[in-house]
């Protein structure tokens, strides 16, 4: 008998792959910095879900993956704080956070 839907690693990994795809799409397509930041958070979530799925189904020690995901969450929080402060500084200088207008270094 097949295991239930929530007991198959493939389902979780497919959801993680979907999150990664959506995040990359948003990262390419968004035109404001905060939109790109949100898409980046989706990619972080995809990585965390991958860690947790493999931790549950493959790894013998179920503590390692949880700690890795905790570290990912901490890094994501730090990244959001830094990125938002940069965004606010950029907005103060440019009056806009569209990625296209930040072209001072463009040759």
């Amino acid at each position, binding site marked *: 008998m097949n295991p239930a839907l929530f007991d198959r690693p493939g389902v979780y990994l497919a959801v993680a792959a979907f999150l990664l795809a*959506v995040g990359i799409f948003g990262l390419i397509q968004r035109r404001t910095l905060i939109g790109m930041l949100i898409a980046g958070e989706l990619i972080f979530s995809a990585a965390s879900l991958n860690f947790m799925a493999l931790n549950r189904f493959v790894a013998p020690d179920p503590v390692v993956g949880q700690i890795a995901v905790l570290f990912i969450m901490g890094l994501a929080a730090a990244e959001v704080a*830094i990125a938002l402060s940069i965004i606010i500084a950029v907005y103060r200088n440019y009056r806009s956070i569209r990625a296209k207008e930040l072209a001072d270094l463009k040759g």
Partner: protein
Amino acid sequence: MSAFPLAGPIATGIFGFVVAITVLGALVAVFTRRIIRAVAGLALCALGLAGLYYFLHSPFLALMEILIYIGAVCVVIVFGIMLSEPDEPALAPAGRREFGWSALALAVSAALGAGVAYVSLHGPWPAPAAAAADGSVESIGAALLTTYSLPFELISLVLLVAILGALAIARGGRGAP
């Protein structure tokens, strides 16, 4: 199965609901034009992810996901939105280049996601290993203070430096015109 009669179908239904919330939240987070709705989509996606973590036998991480992502990250992004004007500009009328760019983004992400999803759905995953330890909160705490104490301290250092750096960067231009 278990003592409760319809336990299997009910659990499968809840699982499908959680997956649907995650997928819907991710789509909302990327496709809306109002950025505040994108943040709401991110929060919805985090809620679904918390449910998925619960199904992966980790209620601790489910609570952490809600606490950190919805309670901290989304709130901070909302503050950032209030301090700037991040709404996506309306599509330019002559948007052929934009359209091509979106099509390229769609093609790249769809190819990547479909490839990874195909591999993960068809790959021969090994049978679940016998658990060497229970993944309880107690064992997580013990591991954090013994095996992983150095990364634990390092991540608190990273968070401290991030806070100081955020303050320094965001305060820097104050007073300038």
